């Protein structure tokens, strides 16, 4: 595969890589007839992102002749730490880089990224890659009962209010409003945590469809990259989701590119959700998935077992012709983890991600949540162990609406 990007597109490409670097440590490159897809997934398999650049995005885009040993295009993955430094300083790229050429595969076994800069200076990087099956995610956007489409800066402006260290947030929708609040666990001393909540009226959105009232809790950190990308390109962000436990998809698109981030959401006790919303006067009563948090020991241990990791995800070998993540169509999660090293490395990765007891619990549960239909044994039987305290209501804040509009 050989492609040439010019000027501003190099910066957009770099921004996509920044967004992907927030998700995982590896970057999957998948050159296709439809375009070049860049993908990343996190080690817990609870976050996945894909940026697809159509051939129109590039000044030149060619896949290489099919006659070369039967496979014209090489699908590969690169270590994020080899690629990210090349695009780290976007302002300097904007100032200096006139064109960028990317070549994958033949003749060398390297990915070559060449920057043609001002003053005739040329920077060439030859990066080692690993051949790999393509990575794709399961997500049926068209089956999602809830769809929001927010103008470019709306979500970015909302998440700006949360501290950078905030790991998870909860998005709640009712037909009357949409709110975002930070998520914290029972264990933390509530007095020391700053609680932030903001609400939006459905009118703030370009498109608002709430089929099922729900609260979904997902990892914010992994989303920030996409929101920043959307803001810089002034693209509206679409959100497709269902009830807690099912994944949420944030996506943007324009004429030459599509990007999406699919995040697993925290499993919640099913029974609670409908009953809460039937109390109209009460503003959002906190729907912290207390029950999900409690069984720390058992679920966590299970998820660290390699077999547990592997069976959670649908392992279907990739075929060249499979369409990639495209919101209206259903895709299959395909993975290269069939090889013997896969499960082991993910086990280690899962362990390394679990640096604090709290985050490890979240990881394992989010993981299950992605394929909740497969295995609900542990989580579905969780009793409600905590009731809501009245002081929660004092912390409610009602934001009038997005200031950016």
């Amino acid at each position, binding site marked *: 595969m050989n492609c040439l990007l010019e000027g501003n597109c190099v910066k957009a490409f770099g921004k996509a890589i920044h967004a992907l670097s927030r998700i995982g440590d590896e970057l999957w490159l998948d050159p296709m007839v439809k375009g070049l897809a860049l993908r990343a997934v996190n080690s817990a398999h609870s976050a996945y992102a894909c940026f697809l650049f159509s051939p129109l995005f590039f000044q030149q885009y060619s896949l290489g002749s099919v006659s070369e040993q039967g496979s014209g295009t090489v699908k590969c993955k690169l270590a994020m730490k080899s690629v990210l430094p090349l695009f780290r300083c976007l302002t300097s790229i904007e100032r200096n880089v006139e064109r960028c050429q990317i070549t994958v595969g033949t003749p060398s076994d390297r990915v070559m990224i060449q920057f043609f800069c001002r003053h005739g200076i*040329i920077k060439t*990087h030859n*990066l080692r890659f690993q051949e790999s099956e393509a990575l794709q995610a399961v997500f049926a956007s068209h089956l999602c009962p809830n769809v929001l489409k927010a103008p470019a800066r709306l979500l970015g402006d909302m998440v700006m209010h949360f501290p950078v260290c905030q790991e998870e947030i909860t998005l709640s929708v009712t037909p009357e409003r949409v709110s975002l609040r930070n998520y914290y666990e029972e264990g933390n001393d509530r007095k020391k945590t700053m609680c932030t909540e903001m609400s939006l009226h459905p009118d703030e959105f370009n498109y608002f469809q709430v089929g099922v009232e729900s609260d979904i809790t997902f990892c914010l950190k992994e989303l920030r990259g996409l929101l920043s990308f959307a803001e810089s390109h002034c693209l509206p962000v679409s959100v497709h989701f269902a009830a807690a436990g099912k994944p949420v998809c944030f996506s943007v698109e324009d004429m030459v590119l599509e990007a999406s981030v699919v995040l697993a959401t925290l499993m919640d006790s099913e029974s609670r959700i409908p009953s809460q919303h039937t109390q109209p006067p009460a503003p959002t009563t906190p729907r912290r998935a207390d029950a999900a948090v409690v069984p720390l020991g058992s679920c966590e241990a299970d998820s660290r077992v390699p077999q547990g990791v592997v069976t959670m995800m649908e392992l279907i070998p990739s075929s060249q012709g499979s369409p990639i993540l495209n919101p209206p169509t259903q895709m299959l999660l395909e993975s290269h983890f069939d090889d013997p090293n896969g499960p082991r490395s993910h086990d280690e990765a899962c362990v390394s991600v679990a640096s604090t007891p709290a985050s490890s619990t979240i990881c394992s549960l989010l993981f299950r949540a992605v394929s909740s239909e497969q295995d609900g044994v542990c989580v579905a039987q969780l009793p409600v162990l905590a009731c809501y305290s009245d002081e929660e209501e004092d912390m409610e804040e009602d934001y009038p609406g997005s200031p950016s509009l």
Partner: protein
Amino acid sequence: MPLSTQSQADDEPYVLVASLDNARNLSNILKSITFKDHAIFSATPNGLKVTVEDSKCMQANAFIQADIFQEFTIKEDLVGFQVNLTVLLDCLNIFGGSTVQGVSTALRMCYRGYGYPLTLFLEEGGVVTVCKINTQEPEEPVDFDFCSNNVTNKVILLSESLKEAFSELDMTSEVLQITMSPSQPYFRLSTFGNSGNAHYDYPKDSEMMELFRCTTTQTNRYKMSLLKPSTKALALSCKVSVRTDSRGFLSLQYLVRNDDGQICFVEYYCCPDEEVEEE
């Protein structure tokens, strides 16, 4: 000025007296060669040369000519001593190194000779500090025997084009390879790191290339750890000349403008890691 009047009577015993209205004109340039603790000072009637060496393979020299100083009196042909450079810099910045316009530290540096400490009189805003730094026997700096006659390839580049390259250099590479050639790729910096290799090519007709005089194709590798400190001098400079001789020894000369727009030089010499035959 308080400093000069107060020490009129003490002038005779000093073999070297150097004064600056703005100590930054000395401290900035010395900072760019501070990668080792001690430095060899050599003063001649032409000015001051400060040398720092690393493992006998790399040497950095800073030249501050006599006319940069407001006063430069030397009673011998050559005055040499060795001091701890880190301590000296701490003293030069003893008033905190303020960068407010119009506020500067005045310096009077005095040396009585062999066995005596280096005395610094520093003044800012009416406050005077006297620092005495012990000196040591100066070591003989390595003579890299780099003479202009032996230079095979020389280029002069505007520093701004190199600054970015040096800041992006793959530090997992043990060596920095420099290729200079009358034909493509003309001037190339290469690294070989864990992720792969990288090449930075500067064509001979680039606007950043002020001078291009390459006679033969040469490729030499230098230890990255030895060259990395030169980035500080690069950051201060506006132009740099890169020369290699027939043995593959590297000379980097940086043209630095100080706060008052005067020109000083910093020079780095480095011996090659291994001889690489050109292809």
